[in-house]
């Protein structure tokens, strides 16, 4: 019974909870049991709250039972367990961001995205592991130890939302919330055989999302399928008075059906996303998936995003520049341990030098340099101008296509330790995901095959601003005719 409960789709869980066929307690207990069985090998979570989750489950069951008697409607996600990346605050739940500098931080407020999900009835199982301050592509930068990829424990789950991805892939939660600043939802989704949405910038409130690169940060969702993501996304999205960059563009109610006809859909394939040096199996699987979309009726059109190769240097100037400003708040005055009391400056420097990890310090240094007097115009200023060109590439492409299909990463999940000595090699892992954040457009990653080592391969569908619905519908149609998303690792 336990095994079958955790294998249900989110839609089946919600239907079962509604009808009374399954209880929230049994569902939550099933995921707790599964976590107890596999977590020692995966290390997806930084903290868990099983007792609290079961208590909430009992409350949800009581509400569901009462509603069945009275016929009243209940919140859309009532009784559904989820996991939350440790970059989003939940009042009273420790939030470390994978950093020693927030080791004891217990936030006094809840992120809007999470509050909306709580209002819709979800139950939080725990907070998931991540690269420190979401800076990384492998979850090896967590101050609390790496997470393993459930498909091969010697490999990374991707990053920075690696804990969220591993938790879903290992069936330790049906759904997990992540954040995506340069690919941090899509790349781990791809590495772990999952579906993951990076919404349009401004679509989901950033209030309570610990800031990294504020003009790039988004809150996203990882699950097994587009169908599983839709109800979560719809309950999180929308304008928020607490985030001035959240946008009040209406969130359409996405109606998914079992139609697999994609007639009328124009799919763009960007030549710049199939490069020398990428794993041949990735290219083959992605091209095959595009062929499948074509067979389903879509029109496939070659497009060009000519400034793609500049996205990496642009991102690695803009994101660290914003990070260097955002992370100035870690001064050991309002939160965090304090490493020295010598003098004010000594306190700042000692605390930050001691408690930030190597990648965070590297990016703060890089960003500080890019913003410093004499270098601002050449680095940060020029990067912002090239960002305009990258955004225009997308605007231009969307004049002739509805969506763009391309690989998520040049390779499948790499081995732990493979890139840790060479930051530039690690940054190159993000080459296909960064442009999307720079342009602010939405991207949906989903599995389209496996390589010879049985590691998942992901494709991303990109859309114009605020067109997540088209991505969900297209991926859902694809997932009706394929079963890559149904495969789970043996653990």
């Amino acid at each position, binding site marked *: 019974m336990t095994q079958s409960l955790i294998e249900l789709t989110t839609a089946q869980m919600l239907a079962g909870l509604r009808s009374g066929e399954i209880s929230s307690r049994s569902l939550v207990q099933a995921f707790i049991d599964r976590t107890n069985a596999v977590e020692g090998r995966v290390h997806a979570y930084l903290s868990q709250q099983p007792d609290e989750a079961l208590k909430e489950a009992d409350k949800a069951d009581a509400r569901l039972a009462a509603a069945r008697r009275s016929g009243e409607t209940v919140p859309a996600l009532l009784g559904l367990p989820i996991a939350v990346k440790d970059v989003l605050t939940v009042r009273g739940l420790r939030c470390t961001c994978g950093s020693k500098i927030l080791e004891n931080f217990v936030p006094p407020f809840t992120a809007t995205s999470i509050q909306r999900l709580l209002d819709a009835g979800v139950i939080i199982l725990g907070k998931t592991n991540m690269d420190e301050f979401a800076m990384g592509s492998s979850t090896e930068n967590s101050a609390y130890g790496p997470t393993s990829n459930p498909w091969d424990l010697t490999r990374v789950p991707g990053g920075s939302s690696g804990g969220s991805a591993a938790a879903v892939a290992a069936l330790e939660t049906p759904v997990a919330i992540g954040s995506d600043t340069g690919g941090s939802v899509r790349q781990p989704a791809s590495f772990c055989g999952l579906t993951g949405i990076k919404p349009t910038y*401004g679509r989901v409130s950033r209030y309570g999302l610990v800031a990294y690169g504020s003009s790039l940060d988004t809150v996203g969702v990882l699950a097994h399928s587009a169908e599983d993501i839709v109800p979560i996304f719809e309950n999180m999205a929308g304008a928020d008075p607490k985030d001035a960059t959240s946008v009040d563009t209406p969130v359409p109610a996405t109606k998914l059906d079992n139609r697999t006809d994609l007639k009328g859909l124009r799919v763009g394939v960007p030549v710049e996303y199939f490069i020398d040096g990428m794993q041949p199996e990735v290219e083959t699987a992605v091209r095959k998936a595009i062929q499948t979309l074509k067979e389903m009726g879509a029109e496939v059109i070659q497009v060009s995003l000519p400034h793609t190769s*500049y996205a*990496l240097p642009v991102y690695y100037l803009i994101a660290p520049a914003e990070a260097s400003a955002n992370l100035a708040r870690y001064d050991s005055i309002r939160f965090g341990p*304090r490493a020295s009391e010598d003098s004010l400056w000594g306190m700042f420097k*000692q605390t930050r030098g001691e408690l930030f990890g190597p990648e965070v*310090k590297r990016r703060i240094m890089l960003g*500080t340099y890019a913003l410093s007097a004499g270098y601002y115009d050449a680095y940060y200023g020029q990067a912002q*101008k*090239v960002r305009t060109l990258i*955004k225009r590439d997308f605007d231009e492409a969307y004049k002739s296509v509805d969506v763009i299909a391309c690989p998520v990463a040049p390779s499948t999940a790499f081995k732990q330790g493979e890139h840790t000595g060479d930051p530039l090699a690690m940054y190159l892992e993000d080459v296909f995901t960064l442009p999307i954040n720079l342009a602010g457009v939405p991207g949906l990653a989903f599995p389209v095959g496996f390589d010879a080592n049985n590691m998942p391969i992901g494709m991303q569908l990109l859309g114009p601003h605020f067109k997540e619905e088209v991505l969900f519908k297209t991926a859902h149609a694809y997932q009706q005719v394929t079963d890559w998303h149904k495969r789970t690792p043996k653990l």
Partner: protein
Amino acid sequence: MKLTLEEVNHIANLARLNLTDEEKQKYQEQLSAILDYAARLQELDTSGIAPTASVLSASSPLRPDQAGQSLPVEEALENSPSKTDNQFRVPPVFE
């Protein structure tokens, strides 16, 4: 272009980071490599191109200027490593 050790010291100071000699050396190498890579941006002619600070075209929303509920002092201080008399406590700012 290779960063000098003085430049690394200067940036670390601006960023308020104490670094060990080993870290300084490592960052000198790594940051130089990353900046070399970033130098390719100079190939592009961006004269007449406006910088993008935000992808949003919408203007900044305003809210009514009304007093509302805010975080109670005790809760705002809760996570501080040092506090006294409902205030944050820090080493002397002026000697």
